């Protein structure tokens, strides 16, 4: 569970101060996949950093329901001097849980999701979509209870984006993880989420929240539903595009 309660965050630089987030309140329940969507520059990355505890709010409180979280970003940030397998072990090493048992689990996870033949390879030998999948498995290796995703698909080309997007969603659902995704992509948010939180332009406030339940839960089916385009229109209006 993750709870933002009246969160405000202000950046201070020599040039001045920027309030990126103001009085923001929303909740992510356990097992839920929540997307936060807003125009570019509204404060989405800031929200993710606040959620991950990388930034401390200027006021208000971020409540985390205990447990670990994993963080996945727009760029995969794989270390080219490590093999795919060693990249996946990185969080185990950092969190000092690098036991043979945990490593075995991580490898099993990687194999389960089609990385078996790539484990000993360098990340540089993989395609963008495959790299992003490695990044997800790396995030999952430390067995987080919650995932925070910062536009993890936006660096991919359109075709790959759809595939990786479906991939990631099914892996996250398959592993029964809670997830918070920030994105500016409306269709991505609708296709993936149980709930969409719409933000205003900077400073980010909640404009609306939508529970999304149509389709069978897979992004692919959702995109084909008639409700998809209706929801898309509603969100588009709320975002003012």
């Amino acid at each position: 569970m993750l709870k933002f309660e009246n969160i405000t965050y202000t950046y201070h630089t020599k040039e001045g101060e920027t309030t990126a987030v103001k009085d923001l309140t929303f909740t992510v329940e356990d097992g839920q996949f929540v997307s936060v969507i807003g125009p570019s520059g509204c404060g989405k990355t800031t929200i993710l950093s606040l959620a991950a505890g990388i930034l401390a709010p200027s006021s208000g409180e971020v409540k985390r329901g205990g447990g670990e979280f994993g963080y996945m970003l727009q760029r995969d940030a794989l270390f080219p001097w490590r093999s795919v397998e060693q990249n996946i072990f990185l969080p185990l090493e950092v969190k000092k849980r690098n036991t043979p048992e945990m490593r075995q689990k991580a490898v099993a996870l990687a194999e389960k999701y089609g990385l078996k033949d790539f484990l000993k390879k360098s990340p540089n030998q993989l395609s963008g979509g495959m790299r992003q999948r490695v990044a997800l498995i790396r995030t999952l290796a430390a067995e987080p209870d919650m995932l925070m995703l910062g536009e993890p698909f936006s660096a991919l080309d359109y075709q790959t984006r759809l595939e990786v997007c479906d991939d990631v969603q099914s892996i996250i659902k398959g592993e029964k993880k809670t997830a918070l995704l920030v994105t500016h992509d409306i269709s991505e948010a609708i296709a993936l989420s149980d709930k969409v939180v719409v933000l205003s332009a900077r400073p980010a406030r909640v404009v609306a929240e939508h529970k999304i339940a149509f389709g069978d839960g897979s992004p692919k089916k959702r995109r084909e539903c008639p409700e998809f385009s209706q929801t898309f229109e509603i969100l588009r209006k709320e975002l003012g595009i």
Partner: protein
Amino acid sequence: MTALPRAAGDKEIPMKNKKDNNFSREHLAYLRKERNKKIVITVSRILILVAILGIWELCAQVKLIDPFITSSPSRVVKTIGDLIKNGTLFYHIGITLGETIAGFAIAVVLGYSIAVLLWASDSAMKILEPYIVVLNSLPKIALGPLIIIWIGTGYTAIIFMTVIVSIIVCIMNSLAGFIAVDRTKLLLMRSMGAGKVTTLRKLIMPASLPALMNTLKVAVGLAWIGSIMGEYIVSKAGLGYLIVYGGQVFKLDLVMTATFILCLLAGGMYGIIAIIEKRFNK
């Protein structure tokens, strides 16, 4: 749950490597052309050296130039022979090589460590920046008299000189390498709760390895400058000493010989570092 179908871009492109002999004809022609280019370059390099030495020797032989002032390849060879006979050649080489390697090693280790400290503390970096800039632009030879008075005229003085000449570049290059590390990767480490030490070990050090290799290459050249400069000022032995001594007593053969050996040593040391670099970057 079964493995997911592979995404479209997931196919690996099989790359033919050197072991494959079933190359196309164009590729073979291309390889041949590349090899020929390489041969031309190597041969040209050798020819230039031979030409210089040959012309030098010839001019000296026909007294176009005065070998007393310019020396000549044959005289250099003879001098090397003499130095080997009286047993001092390897003594002088050993002294200079020892000073250079010691100074170089100290400068690299100390410089790298200081860079780590500066990286770890933003305020330390800001506070010390002007000192580093001034030290960097100061001609180190100006410190010669102070070094002699403080440290004396032994090897330590020369090693000290070598260190101060090369350490600043070690600090600045290493630090630049640390700072250039991708911000997304840093964010990733932070999101995993990594502290400074872990971030340094798992990310900063391996990511900046190419910068370190580059630092070594620059520092080794500076270390030679430092050690020879040091020997000019204070020494009783070493190649720098031979050069200064040879100049004072007008033994130009000795000056040329020492310079020639210095070229070989400096080139050799650079070569070793280049090989190490290749090892790491492969």
